[in-house]
Every structure is written in C-alpha cells, then in structure tokens.
C-alpha cells in the first residue's frame, strides 16, 4: 500500500505521516508532494493506492487537483485534509471526485475511522 500526501506545509505532511503510522495502518511507502502540480506528477509516476490532499495550496489547489486526477481516469481514493469543514466545501469536493474528508486537527482514531475502509 502506497500513500501520497499532497500538502504545501512540510510540517503538516510530517504530522499526517506520523498520524498514519500511529493509526497502525500497513503502509509500504509514503510519498509527498508540495502542491497539486507535483501531486499529479507523483501520482502519474508512482500510482499510489490512496491520496490525502490539502485544500489551500499554491500553483494548484486541492479541489483542482482532485478534478485533474479524475480527468485522467484515475479512480484512486482521495481524502481531503483541511480545517475548512463547511458542508458546501465538502459537498463540492465529493462532487469533484473526492472520497472523504478529514478535519484538522485529527487524531489516530479519526484517521482509522475515516481511512480504514481504504486499507486492504
């Protein structure tokens, strides 16, 4: 199982990585990208099994990233990680092809509850 974390904050990428480890998921590799553009490149090259993406990023935001991934026909589960928990934004993300949503701050329990279904 390979996971791609797309977030412009290197600290948040490490927090998510640590959270995934603490949640006890079996992960072979965690890849990181600093924005949507890098995320698209990384996913095209590495075909990860799960993508966790921030919303607000430079160059390409999270929503556009989701739409661009789906345009390529890639059905990899994408879960948005954000502080913006508004219903309208969640609905927009799901409509664009996202499979779930995690609000920051999160705990290993939150990650297990939201992401467990994506780990075989």
């Amino acid at each position: 199982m390979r996971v791609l974390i797309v977030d412009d904050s290197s600290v948040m990428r490490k927090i998510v990585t640590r959270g995934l480890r603490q949640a006890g998921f079996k992960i072979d590799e965690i890849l990181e990208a600093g924005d949507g553009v890098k995320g698209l490149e990384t996913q095209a090259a590495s075909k990860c099994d799960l993508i966790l993406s921030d919303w607000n990023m430079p160059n390409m935001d999270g929503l556009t990233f989701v739409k661009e991934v789906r345009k390529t026909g890639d059905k990899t589960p994408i879960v948005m990680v954000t502080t913006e928990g508004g219903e309208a934004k969640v609905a927009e993300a799901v409509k664009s092809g996202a499979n779930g949503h995690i609000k920051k701050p999160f705990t290993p329990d939150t990650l297990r509850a939201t992401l467990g279904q994506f780990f075989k």
Partner: protein
Amino acid sequence: MMSDQANNCRIMVETLQNVTCQILESETWNRVVCEPVKTLPIFQLTQEVCGVIYLLGSCPGVVAVMTSQRSLAAIIKSITGNETRELTQEDLLDGVAELANMVCGGMKSQSQISGITISTPMAIMGSEYVAQWKTAHPTQQLTFHMQDHSLIVIFSI
C-alpha cells in the same frame, strides 16, 4: 444581559483554552497548564514566532499563536515525531502557521458560534519588530505552559 460581543468573547476563551490544550496534550504528550485569561488594551505580537489568522463572517476578529523559537522547535519536533532533525527557518514558519491553523480550525469546529470563516495563516518570525493591530475591542490573552515551554494565544473580536 450580556452583549453578543461579550458572549462570543466568553465562548472563544473557553473554546480556545480547550482546543489548544487538546492539541498540545495529544500532539506533544505533555501535561498543559493554562493561566487565567488576561485582558490587554492592544493586540500586539510580542514573541519571536507568530501565526496570525483572521476571523471573518459572523464573528470578525484576529487570532495569533506565538512563542519563542526554542519552544516552537520543541513543539514541532514533538508534533512531527522527529526529535533529532534540526529545523530550518522554513520549518518554523510552516510550523507556527500550521499550529495557528489547527488552533483556529479546532475553535471553529468546536465553538457554538456559527458562521465563522478563517483566513489562511500568516507567519511572522524575528525579534526586532513591533506588530500591532488596532482593534475595536480589548485583546484576550491565554498562556499555556508545558514543561519548560510556553505558548501564547491572543485574540480580539
């Protein structure tokens, strides 16, 4: 009868105390003690590293999370689980911005004030500056202590 502003201010104090303690305790595994709230006449950044977020929508205002570089480095190392790597200036700016994001995001989720929108965080680092905001109402200051580190959260709404 308490005004809407005073009521929102009371809710913000309680929520920020709870949320910040939760974040620091769960992420750093340290016991956190919060000092009684202080009321200050001005909104001023007084520490080496600060993350600032504007509150928009139903409860406009500004929130800042600030601390020393040394304390921030310890908090970030603990939060990221990386105790050994030396942190760069970018890590510290990134870290204080994310800390502000987590505190305000948690406050937004847990407070009973509906319709709050939070801006993206702005990070400031240095020691030779004065950053001060003119606000309509006094500033509330919450100070959190863990071991030999402390973190200050101020807000004005």
